[in-house]
C-alpha cells in the first residue's frame, strides 16, 4: 500500500437562487425556508473546495495535476453556475431545490466521471463564510 495524500483545489462562483418547493403553497415555503424563499431571489459568493485523495504518481509525484484539476472544475462547474440564477438558468436545478446540500451533490456527480476511478473525490461548498457542506461523508 502506497501513501495516500489529499490535494485540494479552491474555486468560486457567484450565483442567485431561492429555496422553494413547488409542491407546497407559499406559506409553507415561507415557514420552512424563511427569507431564502423570497420570490425575487437572493445570492451568494459560493466557495468550492474540491478534494482528491490518492497515491502520488511515481513519475510525477502528483496525485493529480492541479492545473488539470483547476481547468476541469472551471469548465464543468464554474462556467455552468457563475453569474447564473441556479433556479432559472441551469438544467441541474430545474426540478431540484438548490440548497447547498444539493449543489454539493450535483457538483460531485458532474466531476466524478472526470476523476480517475481509483481516486476519492469529496466536495466542500461554502454558501457563506459561516455555512458550508461536505459530500460525500
Amino acid at each position, binding site marked *: 500500500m502506497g501513501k495516500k495524500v489529499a490535494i485540494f483545489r479552491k474555486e468560486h462562483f457567484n450565483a442567485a437562487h431561492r429555496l422553494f418547493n413547488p409542491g407546497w403553497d407559499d406559506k409553507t415555503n415561507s415557514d420552512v425556508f424563511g427569507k431564502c424563499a423570497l420570490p425575487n*431571489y*437572493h445570492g451568494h*459568493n459560493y466557495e468550492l473546495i474540491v478534494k482528491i485523495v490518492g497515491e502520488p504518481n511515481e513519475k510525477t509525484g502528483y496525485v493529480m495535476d492541479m492545473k488539470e484539476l483547476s481547468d476541469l472544475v472551471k469548465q464543468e462547474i464554474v462556467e455552468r453556475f457563475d453569474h447564473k*440564477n441556479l433556479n432559472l438558468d441551469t438544467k441541474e436545478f430545474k426540478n431540484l431545490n438548490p440548497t447547498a446540500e444539493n449543489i454539493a451533490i450535483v457538483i460531485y456527480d458532474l466531476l466524478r466521471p472526470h476523476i480517475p476511478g481509483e481516486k476519492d473525490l469529496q466536495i466542500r461548498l461554502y454558501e*457563506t463564510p459561516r455555512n458550508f457542506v461536505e459530500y460525500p461523508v
Partner: protein
Amino acid sequence: MVYLTRIEHFNAAHKLFNPKWSKEKNDEVFGKCANENWHGHNFELYVTIKGEPDPDTGFIFDAKKLGALVTEKITEKLDHKNLNMDVEFMRGKLCSIENLVTAIWQELEPHLPPPVQLHCLKLVETDKIYVEYYGGK
C-alpha cells in the same frame, strides 16, 4: 479622534443593467453581470464612525447599538433581497456597488445621533472587489 468599525453582512441578488441600452450593449459593457435572471453575492458592509470617547462610557458610540441601527436601517432591507426589484432606496438606480454604497450612506447617516460622525462605508462584493465611500462628492 477615534475610529470604530462595525461589520454587518447581507446576501442579495442583483444585475448590472442600464434600461436605456439594448441587451447587446448591456452585455458588452457589463458582461456576465448583466445576466437577465440575476446573480448574487455575500456582501459585507463595514461602517466606520469617528468621535471622542465619552468620559462616562469610554465609547464613541455603543458598538452593539450601532450594529442594531445598521441592521434595522440597512441590512434588513437588503438581506435575501433582489437589489434591483425589492429595495426602495435603490429604485431607478443602477445596482453597482458604487451606487449602493452612496445610497446606504444617505439612508444611514441621518440616524446617527450627534456628535457621532459617519466616517467611511466599505462595501465588499467579492474577495477581490470592494468600494469605500467617505461621504460628499
